[in-house]
């Protein structure tokens, strides 16, 4: 067990830190959540700068357009960018953190060459079309139908809660390609262009007032068979790869951001006198310890995947469970620090508090994560 970074890793950190110190001060603020096109442009712009400076797709394989760096270097990247307060991955979330890694792991050479470089260069945005109105936790019961017609699938159905759908170029889409097979066996994973005829996006308003997700209606949309990642009807297995990236690695950098927020909360509490409340102060202290431990858990998981060299394990569910609850607690404490000001939507922490409510739902609810942990890690019997 060794937490020390190698010479090479330390040099990498120092270079990155210096670069961030140079570019961040001149960066404008990210547009508000009402302005999704503005956010898209901003997020892609930041991704482009990362690409040009050599910091995009660090741990992706070289033949996938990445730099073949170790997962540890990627971890350093996440730590340093969050610590410096660099922009959030935003609209690039799906492409960089789970669709891209899935294509890198499961796609053909052609598919990797077509889809991965534009993600890294900040040219294309992806969204995730998994959930349907009647298939959320029970994802495998999805009904969106894809019928083969020559070299294309003709797709009809609808998706819901599709984050960034309004501004996305591509969608990682789950469809049913065999209606007769048992539900897990008849699914395929496709890359669908969002500008294809028959795709309609209807924004949904979130409880935070923003329109970050949408309903997507698919009316006889034609998608080339060549856009299928993995074999026909083998999409459930590919989906598990996507979900393991989503749960296992996609939230990692945020842990550092939460620690930064805690520091700001402590200083705010000191300034407004609430620090003298021992209960509040100790809650902050405890959270500081918890987020520190979650960062260590991340290092543990990264070391593990570095040794086994591949897709993150189901340990990601353990991390996701602990993290999503800690994050919600963080913003409950933030509200205590703010006092009545926590009612004002002008406070950043109020919006964060609202959005933190999604953490125990999105990417698999806490209840589903507990089922996974109990059945797949602890080996408890499946319920009837």
């Amino acid at each position: 067990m060794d937490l020390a970074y190698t010479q090479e890793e330390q040099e990498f950190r120092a270079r990155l830190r210096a670069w961030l110190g140079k570019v961040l001060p001149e960066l404008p603020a990210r547009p508000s959540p009402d302005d999704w096109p503005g956010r898209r442009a901003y997020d892609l712009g930041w991704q482009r700068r990362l690409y040009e400076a050599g910091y995009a797709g660090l741990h992706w394989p070289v033949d996938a357009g990445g730099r073949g760096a170790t997962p540890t270097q990627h971890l350093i990247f996440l730590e340093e960018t969050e610590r410096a307060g660099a922009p959030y991955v935003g609209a690039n979330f799906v492409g960089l953190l789970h669709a891209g890694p899935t294509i890198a792991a499961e796609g053909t050479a052609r598919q990797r060459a077509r889809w991965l470089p534009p993600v890294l260069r900040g040219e294309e945005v992806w969204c995730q079309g998994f959930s349907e109105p009647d298939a959320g936790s029970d994802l495998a019961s999805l009904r969106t139908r894809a019928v083969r017609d020559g070299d294309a699938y003709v797709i009809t159905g609808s998706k819901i809660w599709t984050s960034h759908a309004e501004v996305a170029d591509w969608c990682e889409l789950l469809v049913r390609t065999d209606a007769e097979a048992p539900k897990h066996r008849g699914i395929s994973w496709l890359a669908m262009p969002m500008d294809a005829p028959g795709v309609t996006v209807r924004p949904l308003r979130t409880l935070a007032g923003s329109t970050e997700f949408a309903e997507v209606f698919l009316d006889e949309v034609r998608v080339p068979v060549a856009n299928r990642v993995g074999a026909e009807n083998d999409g459930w297995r590919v989906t598990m790869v996507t979900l393991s990236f989503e749960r296992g690695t996609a939230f990692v950098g945020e842990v550092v951001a939460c620690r930064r927020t805690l520091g700001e909360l402590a200083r705010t509490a000191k300034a407004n006198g609430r620090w003298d409340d021992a209960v509040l102060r100790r809650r902050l202290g405890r959270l500081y310890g918890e987020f520190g431990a979650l960062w260590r858990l991340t290092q543990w998981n990264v070391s593990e995947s570095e040794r086994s060299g591949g897709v993150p394990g189901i340990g990601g569910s353990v991390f996701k469970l602990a993290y999503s609850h800690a994050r919600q607690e963080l913003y409950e404490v933030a509200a205590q620090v703010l006092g009545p000001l926590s009612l004002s939507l002008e406070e950043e922490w109020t919006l964060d508090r609202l959005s933190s409510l999604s953490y125990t739902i999105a990417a698999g609810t806490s209840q589903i994560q507990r089922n996974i942990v109990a059945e797949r890690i602890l080996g408890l019997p499946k319920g009837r």
Partner: protein
Amino acid sequence: MDFQPTEEQRDLRAGVRDLLAGRYGREALRASVDSGVCVDRGLWRELGGAGFFALRLPESEGGVGLGLAEAVIVFEEAGRALLPGPLVATHLAAGVVPGAASGTAVVTAFDLGGGLVSYLGEADAVLGAPGLPAGSPVRSADPLTPLHRVPAGADVSSYTAEGAVLTAALQVGSALRTLELAVRYAGEREQFGQPIGAFQAVKHLCAQMLVRAEVARTAVYAAAVASASGEGSAAGSSEIAAAKLLADEAAVANARDCLQVHGGMGFTWEADVHLHLKRAWVRAEQWRTATEAEELLAAELLGSAP
């Protein structure tokens, strides 16, 4: 960075687990509960012979020359076996109190607040104190942790950080063990025509036990590794505080959930789970309490960052 156990560390764990399974398995545990003999001098010397107490003494001083990370692994196993006795204090006394390193002496410490000290009747020495103080016995919640009330204690503050991280390791071992007990029982016990572990309410209790134990375990390993590599003493001690805080909670809450999974059986003297719970309570009061840990972390948080 490679935050995974080395081959040697894995072997060390397996060795200690074997030793304890052979020498302090369930029957030995129950026998000590029945007899009230907490510290078995023969076993203590065997532990000493196996390097349990001298683990971190330099080889030049007759020790094993390993670090805090290895000690944490060994203590985790002791916690899993629910091994009684002032393990942490004797380990800390190695090289300081004659006989501690070899396990010929039993050394306790004033690591509990409230004027209480554990294992005074069994001890040959008290860490940092000139002799054995007189004390009056107090009936203890934990049948394997006898307690005495003493008028005043010796200062152990220079040992607090290490004492806390080793105690946290004991807690993690216990938390993992009660998880195992709960999962096993949930798989065997049938109600309504199926194993209770197929019911989600039970499943989710178990899953939450794993989450607590895993987060605490990495926190404890990291605290040991970081403080040994001297990642800054303040950061080291706040990391240790966090480890103790999370490990105490994992041990206590896991024992409670394990008890719940065992239903009425869990409330009997027969089931081992109450022994884990009571010991976890004792350890939560040792070296660094939750309140102290939270205050230390809060102070560190305020002083950290710009």
